[in-house]
């Protein structure tokens, strides 16, 4: 980004930090371009987390469901009940708590340096899974709806937050050894994924030449987001059983879903050399910032999966930044997911499938065949009797 713009952004960041005393640390995450205006994104780490308003909304939703169930029972007594849909939407994956996983940082955006900063809401796993399937430009207004298939739960602010979470998880890297994991988990088995890291005080810079040559000198320091949409896996099957026990009487016994396998992502601080290739392109490109003065150069890493994500390291300093459209590069082309097959209204079987009534000729043929059979049967009976008689 240009010098002037950077200066303005720097001043704006300072203003943000001064106005929000909750922020402990703040850094420029990058810039996302949009069709009508752009977003400048700042990543902040907060000291205390505000109580989520979402909890209240969750309670309200539960109350509504109970009320609906009651009215349903009431109706049943009065009139013939309409067929109830046996469709139960798959249970929602719960959001991660503030300060952990994909919600580890709080993000603020502003359109231009100088305009007030707006806090982005925390991200939910459903939003991440849908964001993985759609491909849309940002328009530059946080409240505009995202028209897409599958429908995105939320407006552009949520979509932006989900993309920021994906980009951070995929492209925030640091030189190996800069961060080290907390040492309390030395004795435990590695079931709980490590989610904390501290700055390693003994870190000595890796030489620039080495950083450019091999990708194993760089590691991810943000947790990978699993298929579920969270960083730590949640077993949904347990919850389903509880629900079933509660509404027992009206429901038929559903087959229990198979135990979903635990999703495991690569642990924190995995080196980049283990990143998978997509469509034969290596996921990262390394460069030196200047070939002529290699003693002073910095090693620059450019992501091929998320065009616009850059990381650089020079001695003990390193930094990540993203300037781009906020979209992943998927290679050949994007095809939106197909809508699900329409549900069958009724199970088809012989009782209700129509069969053609036999025509007159067919009936005659059948009659003749039956007569022949009877005649044969009589002959057999006669011969049997005849034999019996003969024996006697």
């Amino acid at each position, binding site marked *: 980004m240009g010098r002037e713009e950077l200066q303005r952004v720097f001043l704006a960041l300072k203003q943000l930090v001064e106005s929000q005393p909750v922020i402990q640390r703040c850094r420029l995450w990058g*810039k996302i371009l949009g069709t009508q205006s752009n977003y400048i994104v700042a990543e902040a780490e907060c000291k205390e987390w505000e109580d989520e308003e979402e909890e209240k909304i969750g309670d309200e939703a539960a109350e509504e469901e109970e009320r609906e169930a009651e009215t349903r029972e009431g109706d049943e007594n009065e009139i013939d009940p309409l067929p109830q849909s046996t469709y139960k939407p798959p249970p929602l994956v719960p959001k991660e708590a503030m300060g952990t996983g994909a919600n580890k940082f709080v993000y603020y955006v502003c359109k231009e340096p100088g305009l007030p900063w707006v806090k982005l809401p925390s991200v939910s796993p459903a939003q991440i899974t849908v964001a993985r399937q759609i491909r849309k430009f940002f328009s530059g207004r946080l409240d505009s709806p995202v028209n897409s298939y599958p429908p995105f739960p939320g407006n552009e602010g949520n979509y932006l937050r989900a993309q920021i979470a994906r980009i951070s998880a995929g492209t925030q890297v640091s030189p190996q050894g800069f961060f080290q994991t907390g040492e309390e988990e030395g004795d435990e088995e590695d079931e709980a994924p490590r989610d904390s890291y501290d700055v390693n005080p003994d870190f000595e810079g890796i030489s620039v030449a080495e950083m450019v040559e091999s990708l194993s000198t760089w590691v991810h320091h943000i947790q990978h987001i699993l298929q579920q949409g969270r960083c730590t896996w949640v077993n949904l099957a347990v919850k389903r059983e509880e629900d079933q026990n509660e509404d027992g009487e009206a429901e038929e016994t559903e087959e229990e879903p198979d135990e979903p396998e635990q999703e495991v992502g690569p642990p924190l601080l995995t080196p980049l050399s283990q990143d998978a290739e997509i469509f034969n392109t290596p996921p990262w490109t390394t460069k030196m910032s200047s070939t002529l003065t290699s003693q002073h150069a910095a090693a620059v890493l450019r992501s091929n999966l998320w065009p616009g994500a850059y990381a650089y390291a020079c001695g003990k300093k390193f930094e990540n930044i993203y300037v781009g459209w906020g979209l992943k590069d998927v290679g050949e082309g994007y095809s939106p997911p197909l809508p699900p097959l329409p549900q069958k209204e009724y199970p088809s079987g012989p009782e209700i499938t129509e069969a053609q009534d036999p025509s007159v000729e067919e009936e005659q043929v059948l009659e003749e065949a039956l007569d022949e059979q009877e005649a044969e049967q009589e002959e057999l009976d006669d011969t049997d009797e005849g034999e019996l008689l003969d024996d006697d």
Partner: protein
Amino acid sequence: MDSQTLYFSLELVAGSGHILNIEQRTALQTSLMILRKNYKFGRVLFWGKILGLKEDYFIAQGRGEDELKDKKNLYSFNCMDWFLLPPATNCLINEVSKAARGRFIGDPSHVYERVLRIHLEDDEEHEEVVKVSEENRLAVTIHWIDEEASVVPRGAFIKNPHGIVQMNRSFCGLSDSEARKLDSFLHFREPRNQKESILGMCELNQTIDFLDVLSDDIPKGSWSLQFECARKVCVLRSLLWLGLTFYHVPVTPHNGYIYIGNGYRNLDLNFML
């Protein structure tokens, strides 16, 4: 963008996220001037960068007398040694569109191969191997980007009575209100649209309105028009070729475009709008 104004125009397009570091800028200043003298170009533009997996290509474009037709493209890896690219002919374009897939590698001698099966009418399968070198792919990509996404403000170029397109030396920039409309920007390529009705034509001026307007592009909305740098610079970004940025400072003749990107056409544009 013009090599004469390189040093400040790069700042103006830096909002898109790509800059050249100081080493590259100084090298470009000198080497573009040398290029101009050697090839006897009227003016030399720094066209942009195409990012490859291993190396990036820096592209320069030299313009002769007729700005629309006399164009020559050159590429370099270090901004100092430049190599001429072949002009993009129709059969070259066909070959590249059949064979080239994936990203630019960064090696001009890399050959893209694709085996095509052609079914003839008598049930025979004929295999055809199409080979294209990366250099040719580069030339064709630059040609496509120029055809589909090069932008100039209305009035910056004039067509003189001989049919030669030249820079308008008395262009003093679009006004603020004109710069906010997409109508005031034109594609810099051979005009494709047929002439409209006579009613529409009376407002047009034949010397300056001989190019196609950007707002006629399908799909609508494939250009993003914004004002940046504290609302002083009008920046147009193409959504079809992600990475193409055009800038214009209103009420001054400064304008130019640059492409820094992968060299991919954005085929998903219709899903993304």
